């Protein structure tokens, strides 16, 4: 069990690095498009939730304390997405 948790940290780190490279390549290669912003925000949520659960160690903590950072992350990312996707009112 200990070995499993030890390895989990490595897997999480590798996954975080892969998602970070994905985000960087989207920006660096100027591939970012309106639809990909949604994907990028989703990967950001996944990264944040992984850090909260496995690095902060909140996965092993009772519900409300585990979910406070995840709820914060979800609310912030949803509001960023709304601000991005909501049509900008035309100026006269």
């Amino acid at each position, binding site marked *: *069990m*200990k070995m499993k*948790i*030890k390895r989990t*940290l*490595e897997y*999480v*780190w590798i996954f*975080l*690095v892969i998602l*970070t*490279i994905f*985000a*960087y390549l*989207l*920006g*660096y290669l100027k591939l*970012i498009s309106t639809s990909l*912003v949604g994907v*990028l*925000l989703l990967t*950001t949520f996944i*990264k*944040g939730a992984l*850090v*909260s659960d*496995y*690095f*902060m*160690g*909140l996965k*092993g*903590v*009772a519900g409300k*304390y*585990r979910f*406070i*950072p995840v709820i*914060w*992350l979800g*609310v*912030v*990312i949803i*509001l*960023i997405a709304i*601000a*991005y996707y*909501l049509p*900008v009112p035309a100026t006269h």
Partner: protein
Amino acid sequence: MSKFIALKEKYPPGDFGIWIIIYVELITFGLFFIGYAISRRTNIEMFNSSQLMLNQTSGFINTFILISSSYLVAKGIYTMRTMTQDNIKESNTKASKWLAFAIVCGVAFLFIKISEFYHIFAQGITLSTNKFFMFYLLLTLFHFMHVFLGTIILFNIRQRTKIAGYTPDDYRGFESGASYWHMVDLLWIVLFPLIYIIR
């Protein structure tokens, strides 16, 4: 039974006080992030053209550094949690090594960020240049101060591990510092795509 397969803990790791600080920081930065996203709507072209002046590669390297340092600190915590009364000295020594690498990462982040600020300020950019740079400088300078403080906290924790100051019954201070460091990482995880990538 190992602590890892025990029932869920009632409270998060570390002192409860540090979690109050973490929640306040998350709310503060969250408001800044949302403020940035809403302000961007008022002048999207200006935000996009200003963003091109940032170095995405240094942003990416700093993300990699912070994620890695967070991983290293988590390894240190894992060492503490698997410590027994028989291996206190060995566990503290091992945790000290993980922390040393994490501190190096923290210092590297600070140097890269200083270099980025130097290039930005050398171009005559200030808080009042435009709204994008106001948010960019406020957010990244504020975050920079948190990384600086976090690095000092990690350094102090490491000093205690060097004298085998943590025991299986008392490593709460280590957990508090680690939780703060992970928060710094969590904030950057949102900040990086928001400021450097999304356009």
